[in-house]
């Protein structure tokens, strides 16, 4: 058991170090492996900054800029508690800093099936889902393995 913990830790360190030392192109290829082994939460933690920069550059190319700051966080399905993707959130720096995840709640919106995306300050949403006011969704990230 101890052996597996050491191996897992070594893998995390190797991938983390590789990401730090490598450029964006290498990071993009590493994401598939990291997704398969560690899942969306890990990928967002390690690669979130680069994905955030990529989205901001993409928006800038189209002449779009945001007030405040942006950040990439995982989307967590409320109820199931599973990671179902990632989102870029935007808002004032102090409020974005407190966002840990986006809670996805399925609901009927004006009679149509929809999903509310609620920026929250926890990665383990319970029955209470407290929205961080003033923070919105500026981008969505879908992962494909």
């Amino acid at each position, binding site marked *: 058991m101890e052996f597996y913990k050491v191996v897992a830790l070594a893998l995390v360190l190797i991938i983390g170090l590789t990401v730090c030392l490598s450029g964006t192109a290498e*990071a*993009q*290829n590493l*994401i*598939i492996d990291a*997704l398969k082994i560690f899942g969306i939460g890990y990928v967002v933690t390690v690669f979130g900054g*680069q*994905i955030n920069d*990529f*989205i901001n550059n*993409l*928006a800038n190319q*189209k*002449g*779009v800029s945001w*007030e405040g700051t942006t950040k990439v966080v995982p989307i967590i399905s*409320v109820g199931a508690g599973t990671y179902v993707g990632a989102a*870029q959130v*935007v*808002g004032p720096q102090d409020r974005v800093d407190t966002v840990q995840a986006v809670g996805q*709640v399925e609901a009927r*919106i*004006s009679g*149509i*099936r*929809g*999903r*509310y*995306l*609620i920026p929250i300050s926890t990665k383990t949403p319970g*029955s*209470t*889902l*407290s*929205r*961080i*006011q003033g*923070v*919105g*969704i*500026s*981008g*969505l*990230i*879908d*992962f*494909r*393995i």
Partner: protein
Amino acid sequence: MRQRVIILLAVLTVCALTAASILLNSSGKRSLIGPAEAAAANITARQVTSGGASVGEVLAGDQVLFRIRTSAGGLSPYQRAQAVANRLNILMNNSLSPSDITTGLIGGQEVVLANDQVVITADDAHARINNTTPSALASTWASRLQAAASGESVDQVAVGEKIVPILSVGAGTRVGGAVVSGSADRLGQVVAVAQVEGQFGNAVRVRVLVPVSTTNVVQNIRRVPGTSVIGLVDIQL
């Protein structure tokens, strides 16, 4: 001996820094209490008649925070307003700042929270009466309460939401629907959400979602500041 003196000095420095930090934190927190306490003393409830029906109003000073128009749990609208006012007075006496006021979902119902305690439920009935959704109503009520807690005018606050089509930038085709939130004046300018797509490596597809004031997103994207996407709707074919 010399080592002992160094250790003692280090311990004293840590103690001094900790004490200074505690003092700074406590004084910082005190500054947040002021406006909330000012509002706390004035939360009241009153009964009025509107359109022939009895309505319970919750007031901060002379400004109406919420209007409760339906009975629930055996309580009349006025009794519900009284219960909300009592709850708010207790919460506001415990150093409540505007940032402590949020919205949330409890048991599938949109609520306004203060320090994670339920203040009021934005139920379907009240959302229908106000021609909005429970989520938008909770946001509006929370904004009014935040304004009251910071000593601002409650009536200047108006937050809403609406559903608009998502248009793919470049092609200009409709690829879904989005729920957009913002102040009432800004929200009126939003006619669509522009979707800019990109590919980050082989495994990551990104979509930038921009509330815009024109449906011509092929040639230009006119973003509406102060608005943002808060949900997606799935249109089944």
